[in-house]
């Protein structure tokens, strides 16, 4: 593929790379820091943007850092702090360095201003995060006018580039990111005209301290009235039917919960949430993908189908908070350090988690090695709709797990791996949901 010898490596030295980390977001940086703390010698973070820090760098709003630093920071400050910590323990951070292909045996094709080049690493930590589902994949009807953006793109425009693509957009979605989008708009002087959510209730579940003014109000009520305080009508159970306009958006058609269709005049559409892992390198490379999460298939060590690769952070599944991902990165760092020292416990057998219910969106990790010792302690699940009932795990004819839960879309449900697997003496585990 690369038909030219690079005179000088863009990474500056020929010292073997013990661990290369793809992605310098919270999870990649915390993995790197942990690796250095565990005594791993050369740890390089490959980050394609001009600065490391990941998504928080684009989020000019709080709250970040509660889990890690026990204080509330804005995204950019949080990102800076992570980078400073990494630099302090001599993690090499290479920015403007894009990994183009991830190949077997830890061989990475990268490009920098030096051009394309192949590097090799003993282990690779794959930590490229999530993005939001674009308009195309949502199959939204209408033309391809300008002024239709994801909240991530809007955040970078507003906070990093001081620009705004519209003045009176509609916000689609009620995940937490949808609410931080209201803050982003407010910051830029953009006045959203309406906010709609497809579910009957607000999807967001993250701490409402994003919105300090609502501290005394119960969370859900808080989120419900928040848009109203900001002067934005909120419609739940409503769908976006089509986008109208020629070059620019002129209006959208929505269908309300009662079936009535409405035209909403606006000059932009913000498509929020519906996160999907940025698993490009796996999709076009050799690592297996789990269609349910959209991320690589992993075991509880985060190891991919090629065990030289370990995935961590939001790439594992959509989508968690920065603090959660930071924690996962730390764990991944520790596991990979152990792996390099051949100290990672071996498995006697490996079970696969199958989903036989369409209500369950995903379960991660897909493989669990037994006996359990190190690694992720829980199975992380998400559900497509709200429901009450039992999560049931079966192995062959036998029921090995049963728990009563009430589930909501995009809300994390966790099952302790030891509880799930301790009765499973052989075979794999099927997960179903029984509504009650």
């Amino acid at each position: 593929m690369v038909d030219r010898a690079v005179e000088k490596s863009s990474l500056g030295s020929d010292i073997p790379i013990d661990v290369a980390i793809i992605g310098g977001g919270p999870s990649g940086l915390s993995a790197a820091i942990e690796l250095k703390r565990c005594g791993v010698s050369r740890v390089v973070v490959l980050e394609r943007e001009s600065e490391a820090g990941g998504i928080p760098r684009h989020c000019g709003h709080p709250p970040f850092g509660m889990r890690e630093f026990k204080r509330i920071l804005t995204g950019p400050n949080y990102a800076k702090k992570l980078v400073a910590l990494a630099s302090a323990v001599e993690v090499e951070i290479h920015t403007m360095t894009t990994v183009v292909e991830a190949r077997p045996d830890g061989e990475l094709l990268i490009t920098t201003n030096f051009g394309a080049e192949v590097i090799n690493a003993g282990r690779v930590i794959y930590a490229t995060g999530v993005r939001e589902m674009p308009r195309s994949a949502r199959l939204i009807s209408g033309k391809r006018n300008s002024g239709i953006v994801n909240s991530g793109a809007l955040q970078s425009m507003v906070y990093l580039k001081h620009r705004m693509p519209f003045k009176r957009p509609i916000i689609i979605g009620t995940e937490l990111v949808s609410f931080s989008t209201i803050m982003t708009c407010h910051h830029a002087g953009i006045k959203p005209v309406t906010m709609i959510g497809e579910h009957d209730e607000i999807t967001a579940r993250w701490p409402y301290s994003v919105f300090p003014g609502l501290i005394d109000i119960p969370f859900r009520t808080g989120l419900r009235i928040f848009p109203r305080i900001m002067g934005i009508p909120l419609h739940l159970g409503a769908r976006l039917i089509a986008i109208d306009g020629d070059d620019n958006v002129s209006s959208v058609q929505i269908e309300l919960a009662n079936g009535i269709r409405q035209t909403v005049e606006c000059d932009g559409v913000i498509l929020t949430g519906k996160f999907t892992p940025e698993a490009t390198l796996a999709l076009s490379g050799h690592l297996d993908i789990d269609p349910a999460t959209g991320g690589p298939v992993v075991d509880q060590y985060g190891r991919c189908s090629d065990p030289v690769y370990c995935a961590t952070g939001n790439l594992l599944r959509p989508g968690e908070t920065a603090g959660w991902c930071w924690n996962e990165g730390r764990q991944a760092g520790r596991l990979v350090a152990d792996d390099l020292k051949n100290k990672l416990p071996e498995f006697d057998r490996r079970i696969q988690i199958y989903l036989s219910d369409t209500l369950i969106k995903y379960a991660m990790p897909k493989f669990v090695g037994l006996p359990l010792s190190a690694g992720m302690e829980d199975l992380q699940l998400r559900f497509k709709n709200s429901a009450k009932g039992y999560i049931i795990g079966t192995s062959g004819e036998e029921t090995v797990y049963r728990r009563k839960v009430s589930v909501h879309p995009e809300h994390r449900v966790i099952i302790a791996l030891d509880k799930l697997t301790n009765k499973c003496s052989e075979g794999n585990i099927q997960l179903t949901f029984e509504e009650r």
Partner: protein
Amino acid sequence: MSSKNQDHISLTPASNEIFDIVVIGAGVVGCAIARGFVLEGAHVAIVEKASDILDGASKANSAILHTGFDAPSGSLELDCIRDGYQEYMEIHQELGLPLEKTGAHVVAWNDEEVARLDSILSQAHANGVADVALIGKKELQTLEPNLSGNALAAISVPGEAIIDPWSAPYSYLRQALLNGAEAFFTCEVEAGTFDNGVWQLQTSRGTLKSRHVINCAGLYGDQINEKLLGRSTFGIMPRKGQFVVFDKAAHSLVNSVILPVPSERTKGIVIFQTVFGNLAVGPTAEDQISRRDVSTDKDTLQSLINAGIDKIPALKHMPVTAVYAGLRPATENKDYQIELDETQNWITVGGIRSTGLSGALGISKYVYKLYSQTGNKHKPVKNPQLPKSPVLIEASTQGLRRDWQKSDHEEVVCHCELVTKREIEQALEGSLAARSLAGLKRQTRVTMGRCQGFYCTARLAELTDGHFSNPIAKKINNG
């Protein structure tokens, strides 16, 4: 408005000279004709009402370079496709244009369709496409192992190929400009008079004079004729085609273009690779009144996805990358509508419905023949200058490297399609400078990948400051 965008400026007196030819419309047909006439030695101007070329029918198609195996025998369309195909084969190397000779299979999915394969075969042979052959289920399965078991037999068409639908016409026009043509954008032809052998064309930017006019206005071809000649022998009946583009991971699910057994009206829904490494399913064929409305709709897109999965079950787990629609300039007639009006020095090139990308170079030859038959003659350019095309595809058959593979590209801006800052800056300069995001996309592929602009739109807004009349984003005043 920005100083970089010159389109609001009226035509200068210098452009008030008398051209030999004015080509109306910079679709793929107009671009090919401009090139053809320039190389024959004519002084050519091309006028386009949009800010960038390829804003009409040519903005969205299946990008298949057809052999003509299934074109109506004896038609002008067939002649033009055969000639166009031939010339593309001859010039694509020197112009640096991609060509992937994947071949195609016309697949029969039921007995009725199997019964029709024979007539497709004999028509292909009658059309002079000799290497077309009938293959059975087994052979088809070996060649296309991911097709569903319902695929019964196929006609193999080894010559069908996929190309880049945008870089080809860009390159044609670049070569025309390098060798003396002039191009005027945001320049809509509104009226015109023909006196003493000279056309005075009134455009939104002033008057242009020309001895001959070639109407290549695509979806507006009939309206131009009505306005300037007072009559049109055909009416445009736009026919929309919607597409779904799947993730690059789906690319390897087929090895060739999978064509259906065609119906009377359309070639039907095709599964094809793109030269950029995706897999696409489409187009539909929907008649409509609007000549502009390229909206897609959810139900149709979903039915395309289902049709794709039906034929290739493994598509089920593939994410959708993009969706788009194009409009065919169909007419009440099947064949191309190419007419010379000798008394008014006017050539109409209309109704280039669904094969214009393949036929364009052949159409150009045919139109020049018409023109020279009425006694017009020029001195062909001896050693025409060759334009440089950006290299947009990874597995370039010509061994060319993408910009990200070279040093000093400064920055990868669009991470999904690996478009560099240098490539973007180049596309924003020069005679065919991108003046809209749509134009920049067609020239560089920015935002056309998996994330559809999630990561790079903000950076693009910054890099394109002042270049677009409809900017991606405006500066925030409050700082």
